[in-house]
């Protein structure tokens, strides 16, 4: 979009960018902007109207809100990039569980905790390689592969731990991972989270690699012809997804002080929901990391408000589902309207000139 307009401006030799529409009409309809406004609205309304939202201990409300959303906020970073290429990785939650189980078992065997954590992350990266190779080199559809590995990795996680769980993690560590920066509602984990956020945002939006990701999402053949190494890009993304899921497995285990095979069960659908809600196209080629993150925060804050309101926790299912459907339906309808309007408007314009 900006590339086209800047080109236009050089043609017109105007000193500033020339746009067809005023700024507010270009920015406001973007899904991530609408969602951000919705997010702000929810927090403000909840603060004003929901009893006890801030009163007893404001830090507590916000920190639990963020802490519960932390695994999703981590996992959506690589998943957004994968969805932007038009692939999907449904196995993230199972990799989380596998990493958690491996971490617990290795730690229980008497290995130093940092080594156990490192090995768990390596296992995450390793299973990411398996996903990536099956999708890129063998050439299987990512949906089918990751539905398979969703069951496979979860099954291994449940299998190796059996019915047991590991809970004797060092208390200082578990306190750290479930705690907040003193005096603020910001969990330590969220501080950690900003590092990968920066890294993934730069990677997606400010590097040739990131441009390649969007190009693959629009058309992988076209991307290949314009010099993007499609296989390598997709493979790297699946490995990154595995590594991040492995890392989240360790964090999750320490946060709840419990290594069990079922850790993070079903999170993959919440991650995809957050990303699609944030305006990333499931077909690939369109979307922003910012939108995906706002999507994750939106779901988290909404469910927290409902929880504090005393509405059954389960109402969030309906709201998440309906919000997801509304977001794709409105996107589809607005695209339809704008394409129709453009179709009728352009000949008129041409006639006017």
């Amino acid at each position, binding site marked *: 979009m900006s590339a086209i307009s800047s080109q236009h401006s050089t043609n017109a030799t105007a000193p500033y960018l020339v746009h067809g529409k005023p700024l507010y009409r270009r920015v406001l309809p973007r899904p991530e902007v609408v969602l951000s406004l919705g997010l702000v609205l929810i927090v403000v309304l909840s603060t004003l109207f929901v009893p006890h939202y801030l009163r007893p201990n404001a830090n507590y409300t916000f920190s639990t809100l963020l802490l519960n959303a932390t695994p999703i906020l981590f996992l959506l970073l690589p998943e957004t990039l994968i969805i932007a290429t038009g692939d999907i990785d449904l196995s993230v939650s199972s990799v989380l569980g596998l990493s958690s189980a491996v971490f617990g078992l290795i730690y229980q065997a008497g290995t130093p905790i940092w080594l156990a954590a490192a090995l768990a992350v390596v296992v995450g990266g390793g299973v990411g390689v398996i996903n990536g190779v099956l999708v890129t080199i063998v050439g299987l559809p990512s949906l089918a592969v990751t539905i398979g590995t969703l069951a496979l990795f979860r099954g291994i996680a449940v299998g190796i731990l059996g019915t047991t769980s590991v809970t004797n993690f060092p208390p200082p560590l578990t306190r750290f991972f479930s705690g907040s920066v003193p005096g603020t509602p910001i969990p330590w984990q969220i501080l950690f989270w900003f590092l990968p956020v920066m890294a993934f945002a730069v990677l997606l939006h400010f590097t040739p690699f990131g441009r390649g990701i969007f190009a693959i999402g629009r058309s992988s053949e076209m991307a290949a012809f314009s010099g993007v190494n499609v296989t390598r890009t997709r493979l790297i993304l699946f490995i990154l997804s595995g590594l991040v899921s492995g890392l989240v497995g360790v964090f999750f285990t320490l946060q709840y002080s419990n290594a069990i095979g079922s850790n993070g069960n079903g999170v993959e659908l919440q991650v995809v929901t957050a990303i699609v809600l944030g305006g990333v196209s499931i077909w690939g080629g369109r979307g922003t990391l910012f939108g995906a993150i706002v999507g994750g925060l939106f779901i988290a804050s909404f469910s927290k408000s409902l929880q504090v309101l005393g509405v059954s926790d389960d109402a969030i299912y309906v709201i998440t*589902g309906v919000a997801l459907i509304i977001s794709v339906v409105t996107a589809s309808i607005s695209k339809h309207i704008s394409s129709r309007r453009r179709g009728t408007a352009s000949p008129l314009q041409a006639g006017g000139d």
Partner: protein
Amino acid sequence: MTLQKAPTPRTAATTTVPVRSVVERLFRARELSLLVIIIAFIAVTTAVQPSYLLSAGGWRDLLRGPAMLVVVSIGEAIVILTRNIDLSVGSILGLTTYLCGDLMHATSLPILVIVLIGLAFGAALGLVNGLLVAFLDVPSLVITLGTQYAYRGIAVLWIGGNFIRPEWVPGSFKHFGLSQILTIPWLFVVGLVVMLVSGWFLSSRRGGRDLYALGSNPDAAVLYGLRTRQLTLVPFMISGLLSGLGGIMYLSIFATGDSKVGIGYEFQAIAAAVVGGVAITGGSGRVWGVALGGFFLATLGTALPVLNVPSLWQQAIVGLLIVAAITLDRAFFIVRQRQARKAVSE
């Protein structure tokens, strides 16, 4: 490639399709290999514990247990054939189970009417999916992910901590879940009928072939003049209907149920379809394979504990089966493509 070949008059008609070896053809017939695996599997399990097959209860459970998964996965497979996916089958199944249980408790309607209401309810939920996907051009993965949440949420809000008590369910209905005809459980017959009707329709009726045409190339289907919206919509209704039927079967087997019935069932249904030879990219696969795939996955669950494999490993084995099935398909596809190319160049 076709463009390069165009000037020469040698077209596909003159190139001979390579004759496949018997072994390869056997392997490619997914149904046959699945059948052999299932029989071998049951044989081994029976050798370890004879009562697994050779007792009245064992025989009944072997045939009755998988029927539910078979029915639901056939619906799922029909959706996948058209290059879509239905992630809401588990939620539809759960909601229908409770609706029927509640109707049996709260009203005095005849069971047959309640069953018909349940089927219509499932189909209506499927219709919502179908309308959204077909008329708004939005990806089915996202829509059915949304309705999966929405339907489950409705179930949870409606049911809460309540559950269907066994005494709500009339004895005759429970009896239907247990009873047999000529030593074959009625529920197995239900699954068989669903398989035969849908298999016949898909393989030999115009409407069925149109579904394959749409799935293998949607653009070509439009150019050919097929009613693609209708062809997209109907499979979702069928899938909803069969999920509803699955819910009714659940009720007749277990005579109980809460708001959690059917959670995660969509993955099992997709797994059965994929193991049964349905390509996730649409346009290929047969109902017989899906039925055997569902039968195999469900049998696995009951046989593994007998074979001293902890049931904890069941999920891992299912995952491995899915990955192996799609990888094998891909390998055969590449081999066939290579042979065809060789035949063209010769």
